[in-house]
């Protein structure tokens, strides 16, 4: 009886089932709160033709940026991708497609995907290139555009603590996109700083209930800082 114990013992097991041309939703904001080891495993697997949904694409040589090195990414759905040179080069060469999505719309698309809401209206992007080709409609005299939800074959997220059942909590602003990403994957994998036993997390303080999580793996993190700024 495995019950609800979702802990796996290797990155290979954690990412088992990932195939070419799949869609992967990744938590994180910049380099903060990213599942470093799961990304490294994806590089190791050399899976190609991936569509990655993530607010950013890491930096040259770290985070999702390492998947660019062997051209594993076919398409990025992100709000901001200005942090790496390889990305720029592949985009200009036509080797990489990008679908720029406003940050709040991206977060809401993931949440909607996980929540069984296929589409919603938002004022964000109306009258801009983001709204082009999308239905627009007025509610109470204001125009909105229709945005469809996003789901993925896999979701990879990073938590601070998770119990064996997959209940997660996040630390500080490393929460960011992780809770929404967790809900939107057919298979959701959490890479975690500390695995704890069920009951150690206060039930009403859990950010991501275990029902969204399929696999839990103990990670080891570099936690690189993207822009170190200290008080003068």
């Amino acid at each position, binding site marked *: 009886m495995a019950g609800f114990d979702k802990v796996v013992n290797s990155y290979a097991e954690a990412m088992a089932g990932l195939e070419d041309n799949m869609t992967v939703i990744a938590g994180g904001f910049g380099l903060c709160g990213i599942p470093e080891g799961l990304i490294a495993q994806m590089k190791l697997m050399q899976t190609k033709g991936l569509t990655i949904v993530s607010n950013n694409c890491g930096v040259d040589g770290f985070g999702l940026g390492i998947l660019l090195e062997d051209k594993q990414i076919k398409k990025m759905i992100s709000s*901001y*991708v200005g942090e790496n040179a390889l990305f720029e080069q592949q985009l200009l060469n036509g080797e990489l497609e990008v679908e720029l999505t*406003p*940050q*709040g719309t991206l977060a809401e698309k993931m949440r909607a995907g996980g929540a069984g809401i296929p589409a919603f209206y938002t004022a964000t992007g*109306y009258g801009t290139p983001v709204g082009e080709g999308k239905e627009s409609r007025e509610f109470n005299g204001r125009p909105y555009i229709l945005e469809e939800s996003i789901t993925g074959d896999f979701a990879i997220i990073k938590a601070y603590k998770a119990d064996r059942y997959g209940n997660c909590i996040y630390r500080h*602003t490393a929460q960011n*996109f992780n809770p929404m990403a967790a809900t939107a994957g057919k298979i959701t994998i959490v890479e975690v700083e500390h695995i704890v036993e069920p009951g150690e997390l206060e039930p009403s303080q859990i950010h991501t209930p275990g029902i969204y999580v399929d696999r839990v793996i103990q990670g080891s993190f570099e936690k690189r*800082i993207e822009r170190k700024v200290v008080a003068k």
Partner: protein
Amino acid sequence: MALSREQIAMRVAQEFQDGDYVNLGIGIPTLAANYVPADIQVMLQSENGLLGMGPNPTEDQLDADMINAGKETVTAVTGASIFNSAESFAMIRGGHVDFTVLGAFEVDVSGNIASWMIPNKLIKGMGGAMDLVAGAKNIIVTMTHADKHGNSKLLQQCTLPLTGVNCITRIITDLAVLEVKNQAFYLSERAPGVSVEEIQAKTAGELVVPEYVPEMQF
């Protein structure tokens, strides 16, 4: 004389009222946090999921899990809250943030703003800017009145791809404070020592000038 970046930020900070929740964009807007009047409190929202952003950390406080929307290391003030990105933009889109201050390439008399994309240059993405201009109750655009070549950034109609439509009501530049209404820019203040004529010369869009235009007070 045209205001410095710091002076623009100082003028922006005069807009804040006690108890305001404020989102400050990168650049001049962020500087405004340094000039909040001593007798009021504002709380800074950072759209990556932090309400109550504090100053940058000391070396001892440095924490990779504690960053702002510009990906810089920050701290949280007493009474801060931290949440996910969907919640953060629910706040923004839902009109709960009182003020957003952000930069722009162009603004026009319809209150349109272009701030994220220059065709044929690399497109980095809009980040949270489109959500912010669609959601905040009050938006202040801070920018230089004209570009390096002297071309006005206050236009009759924006030429660059837009960030949002009909959303800008107030602009604070190095030369002036202007309201946007009735398809025109209304000049309400000028920088100390800057003439109305100079502002007129550098404003391409319809400009309405009242009889008396006071100088900004610092």
